[in-house]
């Protein structure tokens, strides 16, 4: 029994706020007419997900979520929207009217199946914890157990940066 006016109650209320922020942002991101609005919805959704990460005992990942997704990815998408002006304002004529309802149906079935699976399974908690998952533990495991993946991901990022520069530069004189 948790009363509303205690620390647990207020944090539960805040959790509902983050949950609503995530889902509302996702719906705005997929349904808004103009692309800029949809990027704003995406940023809202990422802020909500960062809050959920905070509730999952990982403040570092929450901070990285805000820094990378809201700060970098959303801003890059906004740059692309400004460079390639969208033509979504023109009337939608050449498409089948069934696409919207069918997409709704398919995603509804998918959500129903995944949520049913999550609710019906008996999840067994871990027997013991090796460490507490603090930032210190995270840094240690990132530089010992996962050091190879860490180096590989930096190579992937380097290749992606060089590749996107080459791609965006090709055919620039046209």
């Amino acid at each position, binding site marked *: 029994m948790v009363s509303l006016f205690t620390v647990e109650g207020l944090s539960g209320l805040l959790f509902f706020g983050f949950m609503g922020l995530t889902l509302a942002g996702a719906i705005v991101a997929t349904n808004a007419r103009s692309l800029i609005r949809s990027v704003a919805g995406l940023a809202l959704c990422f802020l909500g997900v960062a809050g959920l990460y905070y509730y999952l005992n990982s403040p570092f990942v929450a901070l990285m979520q805000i820094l990378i997704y809201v700060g970098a990815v959303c801003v890059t998408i906004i740059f692309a929207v400004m460079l390639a002006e969208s033509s979504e304002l023109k009337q939608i004529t050449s498409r089948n009217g069934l696409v*919207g309802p069918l997409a709704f149906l398919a995603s509804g079935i998918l959500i129903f199946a995944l949520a049913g699976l999550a609710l019906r399974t008996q*999840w067994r908690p871990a027997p013991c914890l090796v460490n507490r998952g603090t930032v210190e533990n995270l840094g240690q495991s990132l530089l010992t157990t996962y050091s190879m993946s860490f180096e590989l991901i930096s190579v992937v990022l380097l290749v992606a940066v060089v590749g996107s520069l080459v791609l965006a530069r*090709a055919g620039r004189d046209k």
Partner: protein
Amino acid sequence: MYILVLSNNLQTYLVIGALLFGIGIYGMVQRQTFIGMLISAELILSGASLNFMAFNRFLAPDPTVGQVFTLFIMAIAAAEAAIALSIIIAVYRNYKSIDTEDVVDLQG
């Protein structure tokens, strides 16, 4: 009130992750521009990493595994966004449009 302790429950996060994933799939099918599809792909990725973080918090014996995995997903998503956006810029330069229906050359 039982509803206030939902944040300490594995199923809550799994359902939110499933909802994010499904909304992302819906947007992926229904959107008409490449940038809209990229935004939906980001939603799908964040649904997946929310699932990873939830399992990491409640079920994993080593609580750093899921966090490391989520950080890697973020790096991959950033690389993917950079590549996809430069492809979109290149397509826009050639076709003067980012509409998926316009970028067809081989359609009869």
